[in-house]
């Protein structure tokens, strides 16, 4: 499986999907106007992926717009599918300690999909 390694910009997140090293991470901020085309390759990658070992998916965003929240849910739905094939999948949602909105966003996402969630402050 290929690796995805995107550097973050002022309106798109840093994304690292690197199965060889067991790193799955989205971080930074996500507010592109055209969210669907930005996230399309990520969703396609996940559609074709089956982890050979434990998959901890780290989401460490400090801000995202509502269009991105739709795409995050799409990612989580992909992770749920992977989990349903019998794989060990977990989402680690990290938020800044004083950011209640991001903490709450993590809690809301965890209620929308059947994937184990760990929500923690940094």
């Amino acid at each position, binding site marked *: 499986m290929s690796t995805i390694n995107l550097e973050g910009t002022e309106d798109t997140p840093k994304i690292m999907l690197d199965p060889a090293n067991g790193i799955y991470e989205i971080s930074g901020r996500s507010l592109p106007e055209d969210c669907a085309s930005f996230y399309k390759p990520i969703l396609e990658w996940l559609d074709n992926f089956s982890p050979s070992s434990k998959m901890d998916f780290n989401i460490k965003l400090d801000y995202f717009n509502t269009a991105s929240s739709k795409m995050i849910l799409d990612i989580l739905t992909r992770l749920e599918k992977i989990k349903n094939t019998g794989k060990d999948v977990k989402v680690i949602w990290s938020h800044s300690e004083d950011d209640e*909105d991001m903490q*709450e966003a993590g809690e809301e996402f965890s209620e929308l999909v059947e994937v184990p969630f760990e929500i923690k402050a940094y």
Partner: protein
Amino acid sequence: MDKNLNYIFDLHTTLSTKNIILVYEGEFTQEITKSVLSMAEKNLETTNEEISIKKKVFNVMVECLQNICKHSEEFGSENDDFNTAIFMIGKEDSEYTITSGNIIYNDRIDGLKNKLDQINSLDKEGLKELFKTVLSSTELSDKGGAGLGFIDMARKSSNKLAYDFYKINDNISFFSLQSRISRNKEV
């Protein structure tokens, strides 16, 4: 003295008495939207406002600007003369105001009004449930909107959204929308 230039002073006076710290009036392309946002963000960074308040203001700004931009791409293709909008940030002692104004077709009024009235009728929990329902039940529209912008603006501002429709003619109206964000943490 050139009397024709008086409007500049008038404009300046209006903006300062209304405590407007940033105003953009004109076309809203994706590039311009990004620039306005980045300018507004820099403007906020220089203040010593509490970080959580800054984030809420930024958040509401993003949704507001991206709403106008999406609408303007749709509306503008057939309405060259009316394809401008206004976006403003005000900073009062007690709150920030984020205001937008743009032209819409009259047949959109009922839909917008219903959506905004529904949002304004809900409390914090109700807004959270509505957000989750819309999030899990809709696809991104071809304009990239998820239909969540107004709900998010109401949630992050913790205030009702003020709005108005000013009829220009039988076809179009001016839609104004304002969110207020308190500068006192957790009121």
